[in-house]
């Protein structure tokens, strides 16, 4: 099955859907691995929100594309180079600090992204954005709280947080490499970047975390379907069943 996405609007939206999906999959890995039961349940919740968000967006994309493919087709039958999520969300759960920094970086970004989608022409996208923003508001306050706990908790937690931040910052500049599609559909690309930087800088200052200079990176862009090495492994696990049994219905 060769999945195609032809309409510009769909090509733009699939980036957002893919980002939710892949982060949902990463968060699902944390099930039964939380620091305590309450947090385990909370991480499953976050994952459920992200999958739900992705599913609804794929449905909208499918409609825009004339119902050629189902939401499951988009999820289970595209190869690595046909995925357009930001690389940040495919980074692994090295420890709890990585999980929370990745989530917080995403939440701050997604908050502005979905706020701008409230002005989207397609009313279904608008409706979805309204619902998603409620989820993000909660997720954002939760991930931010964890950054405070880890940053200001113990020396060890501050160190681990700093390491996670240093690694994950590498994948942030890509968020703001706006192309023509972004510029066409976002109301104000620069504002997404400004908002992100303003919040991160002010929080980092309060929690005793340094934001190191990230040099210009020779890294190909997610908008062209380029990913880190982690992505292939993630997809091969996620897509295994429908690929191994192409005739089966689940």
């Amino acid at each position, binding site marked *: 099955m060769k999945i195609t996405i032809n309409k510009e609007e769909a090509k733009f939206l699939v980036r957002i859907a893919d980002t939710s999906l892949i982060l949902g999959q990463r968060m699902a890995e944390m*099930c039964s*691995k939380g620091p*305590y*039961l309450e947090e385990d349940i909370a991480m499953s919740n976050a994952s*459920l929100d992200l*999958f739900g968000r992705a*599913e609804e967006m794929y449905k909208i994309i499918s409609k825009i594309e004339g119902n050629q493919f189902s939401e499951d087709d988009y999820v289970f039958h595209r190869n690595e180079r046909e995925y357009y999520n930001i690389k940040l969300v495919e980074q692994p759960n090295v420890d709890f600090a990585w999980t929370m920094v990745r989530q917080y970086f995403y939440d701050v970004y997604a908050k502005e992204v979905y706020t701008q989608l409230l002005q989207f022409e397609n009313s279904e996208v608008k409706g979805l954005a309204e619902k998603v923003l409620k989820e993000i508001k909660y997720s954002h306050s939760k991930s931010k709280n964890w950054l405070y706990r*880890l940053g200001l908790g113990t020396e060890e937690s501050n160190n681990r947080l700093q390491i996670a931040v240093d690694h994950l910052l590498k994948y942030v500049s890509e968020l703001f490499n706006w192309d023509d599609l972004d510029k066409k559909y976002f109301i104000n690309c620069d504002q997404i970047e400004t908002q992100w930087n303003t919040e991160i800088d002010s929080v980092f200052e309060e929690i005793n975390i340094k934001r190191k200079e990230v040099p210009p990176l020779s890294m190909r862009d997610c908008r062209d379907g380029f990913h880190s090495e982690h992505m292939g492994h993630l997809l091969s696990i996620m897509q295994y*069943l429908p690929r191994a049994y192409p005739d089966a219905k689940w």
Partner: protein
Amino acid sequence: MDKFEEAFNKIIEKDRKVEPRDWMPEKYRQTNIRQISQHAHSEIIGMQPEGNWLLRAPSLRSKQVLLAKIQDEAGHGLYLYSVAETLGISRQEMIAQLQSGEAKYSSIFNYPTVSWADIGAVGWLVDGAAIVNQVSLQRTSYGPYSRAMVRICKEESFHQRQGYEIMCSMAFGTAEQKEMAQDALNRFWEPALMMFGPHDSDSVHKGQSMEWKIKRESNDHLRQRFIDRTVPQAQYLGLTIPDDQLKFNEETQHWETGPFNWDEFWNVVKGNGPCNQERIDHHIAAHKDNEWVREAAAAYAAKTELEVA
């Protein structure tokens, strides 16, 4: 008999509920702690065999349903730990007992889930067996446990339907899918029946628990109810129950099974099942790997409380 014991006996006799503030015999307290914490641990360890397929669920829908189900189980575990805490034991103590092997959990979770059909079989058979037991426990004499069961049963029946739905799509799917469904039933049937525990003639905890109305119906009685309910469901799926002595007794109107392999049951309970070590190791690893997170949260809480004060 002093007046406290008399009051306690009266509660049991009148079929009322024992509440945390009430006096109770030490053995009643201990039996409840043992049973409730074992139940809580089962919910928590049970997350693992299902979690084994979470990342490989074959559709967005099945992924979300499975995740929600595992999350429910975590919630049940949390709820049951809280119930046990009303009897004077802390969650930390219970978790330490689980990790040291002092406390048990349902032996069924020591079996591996090796195909997607196993996720169906676990929901259908394991949750199905659990519900039969838990419905009966809604009438248990310890109030908080009884109320927990009422709430938990509502979610469990959804879990069983979810499992049966997977079995339907597998059994009515391609030849390969049907084969996976049959294979899952072959492996989970007998362990699911043994979840009800030893035969009444061999059950060590039976007598006193029944008298105190902690347990309301016998193992064999509950097991029979499950068998009678489940055999027609397997027939509807077109699957064969792996028991060549299985037959319907027209007189009693019950399904009769062949003998179970109790040697295997006890061997798995003793720790020699396929995944006993893996389940506990996983739990310990998650606990240890995150010790620094709990310390950080505690340190932060202590600091911010000072600031507030």
